[in-house]
Structure formats: structure tokens, C-alpha cells
């Protein structure tokens, strides 16, 4: 690969202020994501994966804070020195995010079509009509049948899988160069999970976007990603190509995680391959 | 439990100031005779004229009948706070009984009680009071207390009903029922004590609404009649002429200070209860 990677994260630290004190959710994380690359971010729940994603987007909640010294370079831009306005311009257009809970991530009182079209409208599309048509075309691309009719429905009227497709349409409408997918399948049934993963892979091949795929599911990692970052207690403990990771994990924690997978698989159906 | 949440509510400076202001007014009401420099009903001396602006002899001025406004204000505290306090006591008692009954009995009793509450709440209180005054004529102090009390209970009954319905589903209540404790004892021993914090908040709400209502009624000339001084009718007497601003300003300030204190205190109490429930979870 020539030139600098698409995303360079250096010594990223994110803290949350809680009643009980400061929590170091992300504690000095450094990694790269190259253009067109699919990188997995794996770890137990609560290890700081989502906090990392929200930090990259700069959409932390009010009690969250990026510590000085953190650096995020994206596409030649220093994200942490950008104004909020410039950041808004970037979000949704160059840098997008797919959320974990499709129902709560969608506004319950707006039609899903309007929510997808809003992305275009926010980024300079003047015509309502054009924005709407683009939204429907995108919904069709994500595999929603009768997208024109579905677009006029509200989130609660759609199935879980369809809602996740809407979120994907929202994130990919403007063909961003990096998409952060925060456990996009964990709230879905197993069969739907597979469909959504296929969809994401197809769309990635079509657009050539880079994906930072957050998951706790090694099955997904093996299937989709070329490289994996293993996160534990706010730190990245291993950064390796997926095949090497599975073959010979360098960090004992990774080995531990991998060892747990089959054992859990033998147990209950829900969260089958969960860490 | 109750004293604990009250203590937490009193931690803020605002709440302490509110208590101080209310204590001052209550002191005025109780010791009006000792505190008031003049007799509120008769003009103090021949040489002081009527409608005098504030001066050293009369810090709050004199009214149209040459009476000392400060003295009338102090006696007015007795009347206004007495009426407000008594009617709130009545309203909260009735409200608690209706609410507890509705919440505990459930079924058609509950439905009937709540429709009655809807009905009373959907008549603007002032309109209903006007209708009542129209029927009974000029009211005595007792009459006003009764009317304000009997129109003020629905909010309390809603709050108490909601709390009772929550409490009666608690584990320890189920346990008591399972061991054969009679219903009335469960109500008295396990449910009602838990309602007390909410009842105190309901009382502050009732008080904060009854004081302006009484003042408005008096201001409309439908409440307490002169010469009995109440803060509301003092304003009525003074509001004709904008030049006698002290006749409106001082009783007005007294009303606002009282209601503001009650509101502030109510807010703090509510926050304290919320915090307590949050901690329990």
C-alpha cells in the first residue's frame, strides 16, 4: 500500500466522568486502518470498543472526554483539531457509523425514508425530491423489497433485519471512505445476522470503503475481516492479520478468548459464539 | 425515613432560606398582636393621614383608612396563612383518604373515585369557587377554608393513589398478606407510612396553589371581606390608584415570597425523594 493509511490513531485516551470517579474507557490506543481494509475490533463487552468508536466519530456523550495527547488522523485531516462544524461536514459523508441497536438508533417519529434522505439533505442536497429518490435507491441496494413503500413506514413497523438495513443505507448513502460498524448484527436473529454480513461484504466490495468492524464474535471476524485488533480494558493487546491470529495468537488474552469460543458454542443458542 | 429525606432536602441554601422566610411569616401569624406596631382595624392616631407613603412611623405606609400597612400585613399573615394552612390540611386529609381508598380497593371504587377526580379537576377551581360564592353569598373564614379544602384534594388523591398502588405490590406487602394479616392492617402498617414523603410533597403543591387562589378570590372581592385583613383583599383595596403603590407592593411581596418559598421547598423535597428512590434501586 502506498501513502499513509486512511485512519491513523495514536495514543487515544477517552475518559468518562461517573459518580464513582473517572473511568479510562480507552487507555492509550494506537492503530491504523488502510483504505478499503476491513479491520475487526474484538473484545469483551465493556472493554471500551464502543467508546473507541464514538471517540473516532467525536460523538461521545457529555460526560465523555478525549484526553489531550490523543491523535486521530483521517484522510490527511487532524480530526481532533477540526471545528465542530467541520466535523459535522465530515460525519455521514466521509466517515459513517452503523449502530448496534437498530430500533433505538432510529428516530421513532420519523419515517425511515426521511431518516435516510436526511443524510443527503444535511450534506448539501437542496432538493427534497432528489434526496428522497436517492434514499429509496439506497434502501433498494440494501435489499429492502418494495423500498418505496417501506420508506414511508416508521421504524416500529419494520422487522429487526430491515431496520438494520435502514441503518446501513443511512451510513452508506454518501459512499464514505470509512464505516465504523458497532456490532451491527448482535441484536439480530442468527439467520438475519448472516444476511446482514453478506450485505455488508457485498457493499464493501462495490464501494471499496474501509470498515472498522466492532464485534465480540470470532466467527464474524474469520468470515469478514483481514486484520483484527484485540482490545482489553481500554488497551489494544494484539494487532494481527486474522489468519495468524487464529493460528498462533501472540497475546495470552487472545488465546484465552479463542479458547472460550467452542466451549460457549456447546451451550445455549443465544450469543452462540460470543466471547 | 421521612426525617432523613427531609434533612437531605434541607441541605441546599435555597431550601434553608425558604424555611427561614416561612418561619418568619408563621411567627408573624402567631404573634401578630405582639409584633404589629398598631391596631390593624383602626387608624393609629389623628395626625397620620390616609394613603401616606412609607415613613419612619409607618415603614410600609398607611392605607385609605389611615391604617398602618405593616400591622395589617402582619395580621394578614394570620388570616392568609391560617386559611391556607387549614384548607391544605383539609384538602390533604380528604385527598389522602380518597387516594388510599381508591388505590387500595381498586375495581369500581377506584374507577368512580378517579372519575370524580377528573370532574373536579376539569372545572377550573376559581370558576367553581365563584359558583359556590354565588350560591352561598359572602363567605366567612370557615366557609373559605371549607371551599378551598373541598376543591383542593384531587391532586393529592392522585399522588397518594399512585403511591399506594406501587407500594401494595411490594414484596413485603405480599408477604404480609400471605401470612394472613388483614387488609386494613396492611394498609395502616405497611402502606400508609410509605406514602408520607409523597404526602408532604402533595401538601407543598396544595399550599403553593391555595395561597394564590385565596388571594385571587379575595382580590376579586369574592373572598374574605374587609375589614378582616388578608393579603389578597389588601391588594384589592389598594389597586385602584397606581400612586399608592405601597398598598399593592408589600402584600404582593408577602404572597410571592411565601409561594416562592413553598415552591422551592417542594422542589427540593421532590428531588430528595427521587434521589432516595434512585438509590434504593
Amino acid at each position: 500500500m502506498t501513502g499513509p493509511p486512511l485512519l491513523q490513531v495514536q495514543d487515544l485516551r477517552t475518559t468518562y466522568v461517573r459518580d464513582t470517579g473517572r473511568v479510562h474507557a480507552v487507555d492509550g490506543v494506537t492503530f491504523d486502518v488502510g483504505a478499503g481494509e476491513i479491520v475487526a475490533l474484538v473484545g469483551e463487552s465493556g472493554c471500551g470498543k464502543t467508546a473507541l468508536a464514538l471517540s473516532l466519530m467525536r460523538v461521545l456523550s457529555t460526560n465523555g472526554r478525549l484526553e489531550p495527547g490523543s491523535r486521530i488522523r483521517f484522510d490527511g485531516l487532524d480530526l481532533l483539531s477540526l471545528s465542530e462544524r467541520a466535523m459535522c461536514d465530515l460525519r455521514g459523508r466521509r466517515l459513517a457509523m452503523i449502530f448496534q441497536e437498530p430500533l433505538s438508533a432510529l428516530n421513532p417519529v420519523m419515517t425511515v425514508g426521511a431518516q435516510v434522505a436526511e443524510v443527503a439533505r444535511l450534506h448539501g442536497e437542496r432538493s427534497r425530491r432528489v434526496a428522497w429518490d436517492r434514499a429509496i435507491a439506497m434502501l433498494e441496494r440494501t435489499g429492502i423489497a418494495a423500498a418505496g413503500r417501506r420508506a414511508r413506514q416508521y421504524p416500529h413497523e419494520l422487522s429487526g433485519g430491515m431496520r438494520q438495513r435502514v441503518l446501513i443505507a443511512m451510513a452508506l448513502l454518501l459512499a464514505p471512505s470509512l464505516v465504523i460498524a458497532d456490532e451491527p448484527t448482535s441484536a439480530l436473529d442468527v439467520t438475519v445476522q448472516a444476511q446482514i454480513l453478506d450485505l455488508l461484504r457485498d457493499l464493501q466490495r462495490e464501494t471499496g470503503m474501509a470498515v472498522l468492524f466492532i464485534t465480540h464474535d470470532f466467527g464474524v471476524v474469520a468470515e469478514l475481516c483481514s486484520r483484527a485488533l484485540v482490545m482489553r480494558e481500554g488497551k489494544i493487546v494484539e494487532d494481527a492479520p486474522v489468519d495468524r491470529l487464529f493460528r498462533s495468537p501472540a497475546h495470552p488474552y487472545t488465546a484465552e478468548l479463542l479458547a472460550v469460543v467452542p466451549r460457549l458454542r456447546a451451550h445455549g443458542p443465544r450469543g452462540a459464539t460470543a466471547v | 425515613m421521612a426525617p432523613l429525606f427531609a434533612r437531605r432536602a434541607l441541605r441546599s441554601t435555597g431550601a434553608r432560606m425558604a424555611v427561614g422566610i416561612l418561619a418568619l411569616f408563621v411567627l408573624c401569624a402567631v404573634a401578630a398582636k405582639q409584633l404589629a406596631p398598631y391596631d390593624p382595624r383602626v387608624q393609629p392616631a389623628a395626625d397620620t393621614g390616609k394613603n401616606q407613603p412609607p415613613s419612619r412611623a409607618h415603614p410600609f405606609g398607611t392605607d385609605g383608612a389611615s391604617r398602618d400597612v405593616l400591622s395589617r400585613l402582619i395580621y394578614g399573615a394570620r388570616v392568609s396563612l391560617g386559611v391556607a394552612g387549614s384548607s391544605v390540611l383539609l384538602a390533604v386529609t380528604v385527598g389522602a383518604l380518597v387516594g388510599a381508598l381508591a388505590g387500595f380497593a381498586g375495581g369500581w371504587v377506584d374507577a368512580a373515585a378517579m372519575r370524580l377526580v377528573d370532574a373536579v379537576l376539569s372545572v377550573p377551581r376559581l370558576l367553581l369557587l365563584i359558583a359556590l360564592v354565588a350560591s352561598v353569598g359572602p363567605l366567612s373564614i370557615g366557609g373559605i377554608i371549607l371551599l378551598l379544602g373541598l376543591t383542593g384534594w384531587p391532586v393529592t388523591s392522585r399522588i397518594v393513589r399512585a403511591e399506594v398502588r406501587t407500594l401494595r405490590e411490594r414484596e413485603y406487602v405480599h408477604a404480609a398478606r400471605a401470612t394472613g394479616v388483614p387488609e386494613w392492617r396492611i394498609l395502616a402498617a405497611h402502606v400508609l407510612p410509605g406514602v408520607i414523603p409523597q404526602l408532604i410533597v402533595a401538601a407543598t403543591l396544595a399550599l403553593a396553589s391555595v395561597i394564590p387562589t385565596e388571594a385571587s378570590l379575595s382580590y376579586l372581592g369574592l373572598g374574605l371581606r374587609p375589614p378582616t385583613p388578608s393579603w389578597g383583599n389588601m391588594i384589592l383595596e389598594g389597586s385602584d390608584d397606581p400612586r399608592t403603590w405601597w398598598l399593592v407592593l408589600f402584600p404582593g411581596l408577602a404572597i410571592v415570597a411565601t409561594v416562592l418559598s413553598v415552591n422551592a421547598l417542594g422542589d427540593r423535597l421532590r428531588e430528595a425523594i427521587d434521589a432516595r428512590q434512585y438509590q434504593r434501586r
Partner: protein
Amino acid sequence: MRRLLVSRAAQSAVVIALVATLAFVLIHLAPGDPFSTSLDDPRVGSEIRDRQRALFGYDRPLPEQYVRWVGNLARGELGYSHTLGSPVAEVLRDTVPHTLLLMGTALVLGLIGGVALGTWQASRRGSVAEHAAGAAILFALSVPEFLLALGALALFAIHLRWLPVSGMVDPAMHDSMGLVRRVADVVRHLALPAGTLALVTAAGVSRYQRTAVLAVLPEDFLRSARAKGARRSVVLVRHALRNALGPLIAICGLLLPALLGGAVVVERIFAWPGMGRMMVDAVGGRDYPLVLAGVLAGSVLVAVGGAAADVLASLADPRLRNRT
């Protein structure tokens, strides 16, 4: 939706019937009747008094008066006001629209102000400015309407002379004005009474609105709106506000009784020719039919308004809208 509509309408009807009965019983149980005061003059013969009573039906037993009254009510006949010398229905027709104008203006202004204020407070939670605004709102809620009205009157009408002191129109000039100036005349007269009520309404609404927006703010969909590139203001207005809308409309219904009570006082102070002032005047004359009609009109207003608010609130939420 239809079920909600029907049940809410039925509930309102029951409430109105209860109120009507309650008001009737209370007023008629009281000792004396209109003529015991106005005709108590010893020079008036008792035959005249009795004839007057018979004419208005006050000599009949209470249940009969009630049945007759309900029957008349159903036909839209509300009786005859002996103090104003005209049918009650006519008095209501003349006064109720004025009260609706006053309350409607106050409600709209109060809602806009309260929503803006409450939303702003929620978005600046914990800041010094927000605390100051909270204190100011509590203060505004602690001032009875009549004091606010008197203060506004003294400042804007008497001291600054910006606005007229009382009435709804300029008595001397109004009839010679063109349409535009007539409207302007009414607006000038409306400013103080409606402004007073709007202030109180805004203070109440802002407290609800602040809580409602604070409840919405942690929602995930606001974060996804930000992730789409929406600016703070867009997130707040298009996403947070719209979700707080349903409860807010329902609150409007609950505000109506207090607003109407405030209107009574304010009408009196600014001599606004509405039904509140009409009722206060009617009490003095012991004009039963008029007072009764006022109470009834008031509770109809509140009941219908409350039901409408509930229905509108559920329309604002698509999750409730489609439920039948």
C-alpha cells in the same frame, strides 16, 4: 385511534354532566334566590315577588327545576339573565369568543416561549445561565396572575403609556378605523392580558419541556443523528423536540383549567369583555343562570380541550397512531 376518540369523548361527556349537576345542586341548595336580594325592598309587594319567581321557575321543587334545566340545556336554551336582561345563550355568544381569543393567544405564545426556554435549558443543563433561568421560572410560577397583571398594567400602561389600560378596543376610535387598524387596535389591547397569561403558561410549559427533553437526550437515535452529520441545533430541534412533542400536547390539556382561572382574573383587571368578567359580575347580582352557564361553558372548554389534546398527542406519535 377511533377507540381512543370514543372513550375520550364519553369520558368528557360524563365529566361535563357531573359538573353540571354538581354546579346546579350547589347553587340551588343555597339559601335564598335572586329575588330575595333584589326584591327584598319592603315596598315591593310579596305578590310581585312571587309572580317574578313563578315566571323564572324558582318556585318549583328543585328536582323539577333540574329536569327542566337539563331539558332546556339540550335544546341550547340556557335560561335568561335577569341582571343583563338578555338570554344567557346570547351573553355567552358575546363573551366566550373574547375569552377564547385571550386564552388561545396566551396558549400559543406561552407554548412557543415555554418550549424554546425548556429546550434551551435542557441543552445547557447545569450551566449558570440554566440555573438562573430555573430560578426565574420558579419565581414567575410563584406570582399569582393578578399580581403580574397589576404589575404589567402599572408599568406598561400607566407608567410607560405604551399600551392601553383596559378593554378590547378603543371605545372612541375603533368604529372609524379601517380593517388593518382595527386588528392592530385589538392586538394592542390584547398584548397585556394575553402577555400576562402567556408568561405564566410559558413558565409552566418550560418546566415540563425541560424534563421531557432531558428524558429524550440520552436516546441512541440522537447520537445516530449526530453521526449523520447533523449539527447540534438540528439534532435538538428536528429530533429531540419532535419526540418531546406528544407529551407536551397532552400537557396543554392539563394547563387549561389553570389558564381559564387566570383568564377570569386577568379579564377582570384589564376589563376584557370575556366570560370570566361576566361571571364575576354575575355573582354580585346572584344571577344563577349566568353563573351556571359560565361554569358549564368553562368545563366544556376544559373537557373538550383536554380530550382534543389527548387525541392530538397520540396523533403526534406514530407508534400510538396506528393502534386501533
